[in-house]
């Protein structure tokens, strides 16, 4: 995919189809998570995991911000914007992680879907606080972020899955389960194309320290995620997912929020890092690594 994009191929999935696929993936993963909770029950661990996720999402940007200011020549604004991306999460990386876990036969808590939803937004708040933005059209921004499609759809389908339980899954499983791997595969190919294009566009801003950050930060984030998961006693699969969430960087919700709240930040820097460096790193090396680490700790 990457090579094709670098050479400016015309091979792009239409925007509407990409959006439909992402809605499908969000719906399917949310629904399956809800069914998982209906089967296994949730208990206090759900609350603990939600809390841990929220704290991780809000704390990571501080760490990322400090590191970026030290190692790169990015402005404070740009550094804060990048930091927000790394505090938040990438749902597609999460989905790929659940697929890898299922393929490896490792179970995970269904409620991790809800944790993913909870981790999308706090990082934005933290990043804005970092550059002293608290005034202005705050309420508006929050509505934008919270009612952003992905959070609503994840939480909504999670709820539906929880209510209908396994019997609901049986009924729509030809739709939810069978085409899932295929849709994910096409979507990842398309993301690869988009990521490749980003590289082409953002050339200059990509100094070596910045590229290095794009690989080091997910490792740092994932370590924090593993630590938190161990602290609250998640299963091996759940700990791996928490690491994946903490180690992934947003490329949809946060970029849009940053355009509204920090328009002075250069969007191609953060997008290239999250989509062009961290996303492929996580998919190829990160996810297997986090799973192995979780298995080592958990086993």
């Amino acid at each position, binding site marked *: 995919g990457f090579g094709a994009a670098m050479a400016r191929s015309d091979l792009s999935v239409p925007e509407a189809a990409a959006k439909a696929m992402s809605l499908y993936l969000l719906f399917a993963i949310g629904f399956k998570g809800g069914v998982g909770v209906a089967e296994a029950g949730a208990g206090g661990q759900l609350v603990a995991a939600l809390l841990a996720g929220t704290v991780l999402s809000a704390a990571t940007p501080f760490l990322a911000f400090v590191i970026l200011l030290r190692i790169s020549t990015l402005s404070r604004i740009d550094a804060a914007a990048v930091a927000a991306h790394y505090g938040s999460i990438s749902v597609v990386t999460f989905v790929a992680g659940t697929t890898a876990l299922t393929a490896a036969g490792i179970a995970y808590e269904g409620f991790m879907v809800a944790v993913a939803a909870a981790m999308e937004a706090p990082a934005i708040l933290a990043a804005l606080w970092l550059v002293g933005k608290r005034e202005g059209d705050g309420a508006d921004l929050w509505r934008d972020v919270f009612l952003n499609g992905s959070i609503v759809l994840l939480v909504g389908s999670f709820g539906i899955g929880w209510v209908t339980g396994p019997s609901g899954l049986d009924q729509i499983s030809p739709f939810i389960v069978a085409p899932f791997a295929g849709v994910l595969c096409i979507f990842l190919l398309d993301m690869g194309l988009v990521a490749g294009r980003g590289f082409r*566009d953002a050339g200059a801003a990509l100094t070596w320290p910045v590229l290095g950050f794009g690989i080091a930060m997910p490792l740092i984030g994932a370590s924090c995620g593993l630590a938190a998961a161990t602290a609250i006693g998640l299963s091996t699969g759940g700990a791996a997912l928490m690491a994946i969430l903490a180690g992934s960087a947003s490329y949809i919700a946060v970029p849009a929020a940053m355009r509204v709240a920090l328009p002075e930040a250069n969007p191609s820097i953060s997008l290239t890092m999250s989509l062009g460096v961290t996303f492929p790193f996580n998919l190829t090396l990160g996810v297997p690594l986090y799973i192995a680490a979780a298995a080592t700790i958990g086993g």
Partner: protein
Amino acid sequence: METHAAKRVEIIIEAVMEGRLRDALLSAGVTGLTVLPVLGGAGSSGVWSREGQIGRAGMVAVVCIVRPERVDPLLEAAFSVVERHIGVICITDCEVLRAERF
């Protein structure tokens, strides 16, 4: 047919700001506006294209036809939203039918 002088204001702005711009224009007494999609563009911040994008990325073009005397409040409202953002505002003289509508 009888026509009346008016102004056509075209604002090219990031899609995420569309709602805020619309609200600002309507508060500034504009009676109507139309939003057109944008496929791509080039400017000081580089070349971009909608192809393969996800999320509410990209830009839109907002066209707003107003009586000449309403241009100034309109521009002020638009500018307050657009100021910190990339984008372009362009004003053209035009004529309209059914002047009572504007």
